[in-house]
């Protein structure tokens, strides 16, 4: 009546070709502890992280602090010149550095999309470790969350940093004075163009390269050389140099006047921008800053900056002047200052 066969074929799980992040990696159990211990802590080799406590315990810091946070959502995760791992370290370290602080401690919080290959995570973390090493910041606490496939775009990272403010702290954009000189520390728009080209599969060759990098050495050089003649510094990230100019104008109540021809643009960014109808002054940078120095100090500043390879193409691009009808002006071919608009929305390739 019942012809069941008794051969022994057994339902064994076959492993996936490449291991991927599963929701279970974020649920506080064995798999999560294994991932943290064997992938994250191992690569970052941080003692505080290894304790896997709720909070890192840090020694006392003398003097006032700077604290900054950024989430990194760059897509694709890897782009010419960098990746989300180096970016998330440099981004926060640079924010501390331009604020006048010595970067000390960093937290690293990962949001992983279910299905992310573990190998990708490892590569990103190796990049984090290298950048942290290079900039001398210590990763002291972390967090790992996994969200269902489709609820994130591969991998998001938040880094939060604290640093010690070192005298003299540059007073900031509200202290800008008429006559102050404006310097950009490298060709503009490289990061934004690199990421846009990588993301939109525009198939440009050679692929434009991001400027993703540390500004710690440059800020130290400048502070050492200029002392109190250094007014303010800002890494010109989202919105590019244009956005920083608008913010500083608002803070200072002055008009900032720049010359288009003085603004350095690399040939790849130039070509890509023309093709896509974009203006590099409004495109993001990730290792390039705008600085303002006291009138007459720009030569010293440029000399200091040009001694470092990462800021060798620094250039003076303009001056702070009495407030005009327009907050930011740009001089193009006729030598006549024209309004520089604020960027609106994401740069999108256009054919008009």
């Amino acid at each position, binding site marked *: 009546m019942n012809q069941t066969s008794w051969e022994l*074929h057994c339902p*064994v799980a076959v492993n996936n070709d490449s291991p*991927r992040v599963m929701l279970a990696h974020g649920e506080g159990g064995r798999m999560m502890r294994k991932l943290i211990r064997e992938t994250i802590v191992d690569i970052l080799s941080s003692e505080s992280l290894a304790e896997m406590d709720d909070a890192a315990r840090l020694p006392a810091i003398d003097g006032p602090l700077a604290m900054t946070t950024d989430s990194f959502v760059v897509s694709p995760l890897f782009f010419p010149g960098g990746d989300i791992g180096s970016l998330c370290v440099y981004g926060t370290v640079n924010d501390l550095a331009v604020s006048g602080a010595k970067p000390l401690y960093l937290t690293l919080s990962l949001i992983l999309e*279910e299905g992310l290959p573990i190998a990708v995570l490892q590569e990103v973390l190796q990049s984090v470790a290298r950048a942290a090493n290079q900039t001398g910041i210590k990763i002291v606490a972390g967090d790992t969350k996994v969200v269902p*496939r489709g609820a994130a775009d591969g991998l998001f990272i938040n880094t939060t940093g604290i640093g010690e403010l070192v005298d003299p702290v540059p007073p900031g954009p509200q202290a800008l004075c008429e006559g102050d000189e404006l310097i950009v520390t490298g060709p503009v728009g490289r990061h934004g163009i690199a990421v846009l080209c990588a993301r939109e599969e525009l198939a440009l060759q050679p692929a434009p390269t991001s400027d993703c990098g540390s500004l710690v050495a440059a800020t130290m050089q400048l502070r050492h050389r200029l002392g109190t003649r250094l007014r303010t510094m800002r890494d010109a990230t989202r919105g590019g140099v244009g956005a920083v100019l608008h913010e500083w104008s608002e803070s200072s109540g002055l008009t900032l006047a720049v010359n288009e021809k003085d603004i350095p643009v690399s040939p790849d960014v130039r070509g890509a921008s023309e093709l896509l109808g974009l203006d590099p002054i409004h495109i993001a940078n990730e290792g390039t800053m705008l600085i303002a120095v006291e009138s007459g100090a720009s030569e010293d500043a440029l000399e200091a900056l040009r001694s470092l390879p990462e800021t060798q193409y620094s250039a003076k691009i303009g001056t702070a002047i009495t407030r005009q009808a327009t907050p930011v002006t740009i001089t193009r071919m006729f030598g006549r200052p024209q309004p520089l608009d604020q960027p609106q929305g994401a740069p999108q390739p256009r054919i008009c």
Partner: protein
Amino acid sequence: MKYLDEYRDPASAKKLVEAIRRQVTRPWTLMEVCGGQTHGLLRNGIEAELQGTVELIHGPGCPVCVTAMESIDFAQQLAMLHTTSTNNVVLASFGDMMRVPGSHGSLLDTKANGGNVKTVYSPLDAVELAKRHPEKQVVFFAVGFETTAPATALAVKQAANDGIHNFSLLVSHVRVQPAMEALLQSPHNRVQAFLAAGHVCAVMGYESYEPMVERYRLPIVVTGFEPLDLLEGILNCVRQLEQGEARVDNAYSRGVSRQGNQAAQDIVREVYEVCDRPWRGFGIVTNGGLQLNQDWRHFDARSRFDFIRSLPVIEPAECESAHVLAGRIKPPECAAFGKACTPDAPMGAPMVSSEGACAAYYKWHTP
């Protein structure tokens, strides 16, 4: 909770254990048919408490464990369809099936690889899902014993009634009794009495066990899943065995009657028919499954998506789950148990399901 807490009373449980201990003169071998019983016995320490009295071996009654690999492979192909065709299928499943390995990983892997997989608590919730998402094709993965078949049958009836055309079933239902008979027919059989699965019997009754008891001369006692239910059932088996009796008894009479639930059986009969079905570790079990009958075949995902070509099933050959499911060995006797095979990296289905014998041993067995 009423009808739960009182059946977990420690003093009563101890009394029953003592009664069993007093009754037993030989190490009788009892099989609890259902994974829910295994779960109850191990989680509550009953199996440990009965050490030296009866031997409890774990039956095939985990439908998750016995669902054929081919069905899981097909479910995974359905969930991935949206990536290669305009068929935007969502594979809805009980949470239980999510971690069970097919030829290429589990449904959780499929999800991580971009498949549309959604966990639901009830097949009726999957019908609601289809109603809310007319742009999708919702396929419910209908696994389970006779306990679960009424719910999936009701779901297609609801879909038909509501005019929901984007709902279908991938049916892999299995029937307990043919598997029990297969075990008894096996040359390796050690089972001397069955603790029959309470909730299967809530639907099917136990009348149909009576010919089995006649033929094989062994006690079958229907039990619930709470400690007192299980202990009462064991005591009943032991008394029958000690007295040389072989009867079908009902130790779960608050939920089970001899004829079972007529309304539920009617719904199941309206929608399904008995068929042969491959069981994991067993091969094809004659009359071992249910499939949609002719009137309802248009709700069958296999015919709706008949352009999907079944891939060759990859049947690996390390884990001993066929022996475990047939009660021939206990999980710790498998060489892989707790070493190469753990709930995080399961080699076989019984290590995956929370009802699976290997998982229950891994979690709750005191070594």
